[in-house]
């Protein structure tokens, strides 16, 4: 973990208002694990003030990813002022990045078949996790939900070996409807589930028909101040009181979380 000035290698629009920025910062690229995030300063002035948390999509440190060892990719959807500023970055620009931060996903030792469920940009850490899992020769299925075809990430973002199943809210690509509707048919196949996406999607996981115990980890989102565990701005209610998404998470065991 460090604060570093990462240099922009590329910054390309891969879906409607969705960009992948490739950054070079060897220490950060080396250390990052799937599910961890970086905290990015957008623009050089006091407005917008706070950094933006963004998951790491892939790192050169994993030889499976075809990018130089000192580089890593971050994917962002342009939803507000900070991400809009990022979309104007050009190769050669410097970005102030803090990270990697947070607890990564943990693949259980016994896991052979990993089911990943992502909504929107929530699939970012799952792609990273898929790469880690493939390195360990697991079978991986990624179920991904998007608003529509224009917002869907191109299939080449996902490793070839992964079974990649897409659902869109409006049916403009893949299955029509919520991605969670796809899960039941994989429940018997999978021996671990990892998910990331909007809160309603994650909450729906608690209501899946369960015939046996399926260890489930989820990556949560909350607005962040420090991302270092001090401001207590990013907490979520858990069975052991409020936990910090930035430090105790973003990855939590599903059963820990108390849903409101």
């Amino acid at each position, binding site marked *: *973990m*460090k*604060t570093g000035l990462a240099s922009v290698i590329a910054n390309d629009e891969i879906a409607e208002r969705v960009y992948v920025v490739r950054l070079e910062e060897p220490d950060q690229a080396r250390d990052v694990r799937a599910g961890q995030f970086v905290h990015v*300063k957008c623009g050089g002035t*006091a*407005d*917008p*003030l*706070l*950094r933006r948390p963004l998951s790491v999509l892939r790192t050169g440190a994993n030889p499976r990813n075809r990018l130089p060892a000192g580089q890593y990719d971050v994917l962002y959807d342009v939803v507000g002022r900070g991400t809009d500023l990022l979309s104007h970055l050009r190769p050669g620009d410097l970005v*102030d990045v*803090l990270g990697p931060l947070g607890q990564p996903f943990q693949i259980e030792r016994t896991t052979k078949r990993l089911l990943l469920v992502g909504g929107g940009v929530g699939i970012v850490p799952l792609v990273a996790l898929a790469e880690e899992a493939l390195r360990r020769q697991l079978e991986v299925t990624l179920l991904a939900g998007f608003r529509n075809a224009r917002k869907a990430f191109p299939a080449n973002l996902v490793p070839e070996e992964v079974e990649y199943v897409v659902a869109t809210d409006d049916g403009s690509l893949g299955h029509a409807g919520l991605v969670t509707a796809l899960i039941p048919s994989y429940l018997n196949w999978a021996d671990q589930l990892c998910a990331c996406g909007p809160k309603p999607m994650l909450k729906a996981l608690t209501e899946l028909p369960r015939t046996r115990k399926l260890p489930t980890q989820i990556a949560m989102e*909350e*607005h*962040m*101040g*420090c*991302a*270092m*565990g*001090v*401001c*207590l*701005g*990013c*907490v*979520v209610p858990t069975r052991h*009181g*409020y936990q910090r998404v930035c*430090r105790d998470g973003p990855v939590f065991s599903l059963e820990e979380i108390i849903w409101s």
Partner: protein
Amino acid sequence: MTNLSVELAPRHASGLSLKNPVLAASGTFGYGNEYAKLIDVNRLGAVVSKAITLRPREGNAQPRIAETPSGMLNAIGLQNVGLNVAVREKAPMWASWSVPVIANIAGFTVDEYVRVAETLSETPGVAAIELNISCPNVASEGEMFGLSGASAALVTREVRAVCDVPLLVKLSPNVTDIVEIARAVVDAGADALTLINTIPGMVIDVRRRQPYLANLTGGLSGPAIRPIAVRMVWQVAQAVDVPIVGVGGVASTDDALQFIMAGASAVQIGTGTFVNPGTMLDVVDGLQVFLESEGIEDVNDLIGVAARRAETNFEA
């Protein structure tokens, strides 16, 4: 060669001498160890802990923070581990550091403040106490202690009586006359004043047509409030003769110099650390460079210099 060290409690036996005038602000540096991987905490002038209350507190519901232009609102609700855990688990860690740790304390009755202060003041590892009087006073229909000279003085006096370590009192800016409160608190025994705490603010979520924060209002911090904080430090510096610790929106050496020249003996940095974890150490280094390049031997010579100059240069 140049001297960066300042004394925050000249009236007190301990003096509370710091090696430099840059402190971590309460609530923005946890219990001091969270940033250890990023910065050398022992290079700071001092660390002020998150507010400690008698009992552990869960804090407010989400959302707790909102970004605003050059600022942020927070409504954490004083989430903290409580006095017992602080004494048992945090203080021993503090005692092992060379950097002094100032315990920020909060309460909802005078009695709560007194009990927390009494215990902490006897706890090794606690170099001083900072009294956060921006808390709702249960006995006055939840009006903050810090909003009147009388209640601010009352809690200061009672805490002073049980507090052997130096006592800083942290003022709320949300008052008509900050000077009146400052005088009352100094008369009641404060060794130093910290100002300012956050300014109450609100953001409305126009999509959902309701206040964005679960707590409705939150405290505004960050660069947005800096001109207000500098003005208050200036006003209070003309009126009291104890050291002032300036806080509010410091993000650079120049910002810290503004507070010092306005009359602060030291600065605290809060939101600035969130934005750039290196801010505090950058300011320590920057002050050193400034003194050297301006040929000033002692940072103490800069404290309040703007008021002395303004007297000669303006007819104000």
